[in-house]
């Protein structure tokens, strides 16, 4: 287990290194000056000072080495847009906001998705199960940003019962959370429904009943753990989804989080911030994937970790 974890961490670091390298050279490949067109209007001395400050006067390999050294020390440089502010400060301020929203959405989608899936799998009424499936298909078909927009129009603009800006109070969380969770709820309930209806058909459920265990406990003791295995493996992709989902949800609801920052940095071509955020997102998702794999190995004894077949 420890050996496997270390191996995964190593692969994670390699991935991050590759990501950092690729983003660095991509940024260098972008045509034109990082300071935009207005640089030509500045006096030559200022330009030189500016270039020296960002090490742009050195050769590309030299810049790369300096960049890597700084990245390892956790120094991503200054924001190009907000002069004088360290990129790390911006991230440190925005990250907790995104994490809080992400955690709420994570828990919400897991709880609702698992409940819906189990209900759909076990109900004797066909229409309930059908209703959940239709909801799940609609849920994967309606893009989160459009759903968020519809929510805003209905509850924020027309009915005016929910706040549409920021994340100040608990009420503010409702719309962003629901909008972010629609897709994962659909995915989780589909997974749980199919794995639960598969599980109740298994022979070991018959053996459990033959022991005189009550039907409810047969489901809880023998069905639940089996049907949660695919859900656990979905946790990693879910984190990735919530991260990218935050791009648009945070922009729409004017939430000062990482996603919003990322979108503004892209539109404003704030390269240092883009690089730092890309690496930060990458690291978060890699960690989430490693945790997911360790967790699914804990819950499913059949998984042999040493083989290490799953993704980084």
């Amino acid at each position, binding site marked *: 287990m420890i050996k496997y974890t270390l191996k995964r961490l190593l692969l994670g670091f390699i991935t991050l290194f590759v990501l950092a390298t690729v983003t660095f050279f991509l940024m260098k490949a972008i045509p034109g000056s990082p300071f935009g067109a207005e640089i030509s209007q500045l006096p030559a001395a200022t330009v030189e000072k500016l270039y020296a400050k960002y090490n742009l006067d050195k050769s590309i390999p030299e810049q790369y080495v300096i960049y890597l050294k700084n990245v390892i020390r956790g120094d991503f440089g200054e924001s190009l847009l907000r002069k004088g502010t360290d990129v790390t400060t911006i991230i440190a301020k925005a990250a907790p906001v995104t994490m809080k929203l992400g955690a709420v959405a994570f828990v919400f989608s897991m709880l609702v998705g698992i409940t819906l899936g189990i209900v759909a799998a076990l109900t004797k009424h066909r229409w309930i199960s059908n209703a959940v499936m239709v909801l799940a298909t609609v849920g994967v078909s309606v893009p989160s940003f459009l759903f968020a927009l519809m929510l805003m129009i209905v509850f924020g603009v027309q009915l005016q019962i929910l706040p549409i800006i920021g994340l100040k109070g608990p009420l503010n969380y409702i719309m962003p959370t629901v909008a972010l969770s629609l897709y994962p709820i659909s995915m989780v309930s589909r997974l749980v429904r199919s794995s639960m209806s598969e599980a109740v058909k298994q022979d070991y459920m018959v053996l459990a009943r033959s*022991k*005189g265990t009550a039907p409810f406990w047969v489901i809880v003791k023998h069905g639940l753990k*089996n049907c949660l295995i695919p859900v656990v493996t979905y946790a990693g992709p879910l984190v990735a989804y919530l991260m990218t989902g935050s791009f648009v949800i945070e922009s729409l609801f004017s939430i000062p989080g990482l996603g919003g920052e990322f979108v503004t940095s892209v539109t404003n071509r704030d390269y240092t911030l883009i690089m730092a955020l890309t690496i930060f997102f990458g690291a978060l998702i890699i960690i989430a994937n490693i945790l997911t794999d360790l967790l699914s190995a804990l819950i499913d004894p059949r998984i042999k970790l040493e083989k290490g077949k799953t993704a980084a």
Partner: protein
Amino acid sequence: MERSKEKGMAVTMNPESTNLLEVKHLTTEFETEQGTVKAVRDVSFTVKKGEILGIVGESGSGKSQAMYSVMGLLARNGVVKEGSMLFDGHDISPLSFEGGLKAYDKYMQGVRGNTLSMIFQDPMSFLNPVLNIETQLVEPMLNHMKISRKEAREKAIELLRQVGIPSPETRLRQYPHEFSGGMRQRIIIAIALACNPKLIIADEPTTALDVTIQAKILQLIKDMQRKSGSSVMLITHDLGVVANMCSRIVIMYGGKIVEVGTADEIFFQPHHPYTSGLLACVNNPEEEDKELQPIPGSPPDLLKPPAGCPFVDRCSCAMRICKDYMPEMTELSPTHRCACWLEQKKEVLA
């Protein structure tokens, strides 16, 4: 008419009787997309205290579903349509149970795994892959005995030792995939034995195992039965398996019982052509030059069971009457009964 009278009699039976399980006129059906499958049709048999009863039939003959009906473990689409079942002096038929289906379910929960338990066919799929052996083995004990988890654990170790699993203390913490097929079947047997049941239904306990292990598992079941004095119903498709195990044998075909008798009667005086056919397929080492004779054809489609004898289409002695009329059980001796028109043939032709 006659049937309901028997039902009434069954309930008031003398509790001192030597019969542990009495099944009368059991009929079980399954609703499927293709139609109603009549899996068990009017099946009656008894299990005496302390005996090993063999039930033999091809796959699809309804033997397993009859047992699931007794256990109350039918799949969602399966229903007991008719019949009475009396286990240990108590009615266990969902149709006539006092207090209705809810009370039946509750009562059966107390019986299953306790006084009535089952050994299943495939050790690979009947153990839960994500729970360790301990959890699965102590479950029936915690359900039925008033003991602590620790006591149950100790009992579980003892059980594993009895069924021949080495170093049970460490094995207890392992998961099913860490055991071989034969070992898993031993664990399933241990689960069935956990609460000292009065009747163990063994549903093809050796079918999924290697030949070399089959004999060991059968010996284990026999030893356990002898030690505890409980009764065993051994279900199999292999007459060879029941030969040295069972005192009495029931032969099933197409959802019906075609012949019942002691082991000697079945092996040396088979009356039903199907029994004879089965015997012709058994490899007997004493008759080396005997040619094995397969029975031609396949079992009847139970979606549309034939009106007459289910074996008519494959029978070498089939007569015109067999196609339209179901033969009745004819008593050949106090222990030997057979359902075949050949028994009436002499009488009518004479």
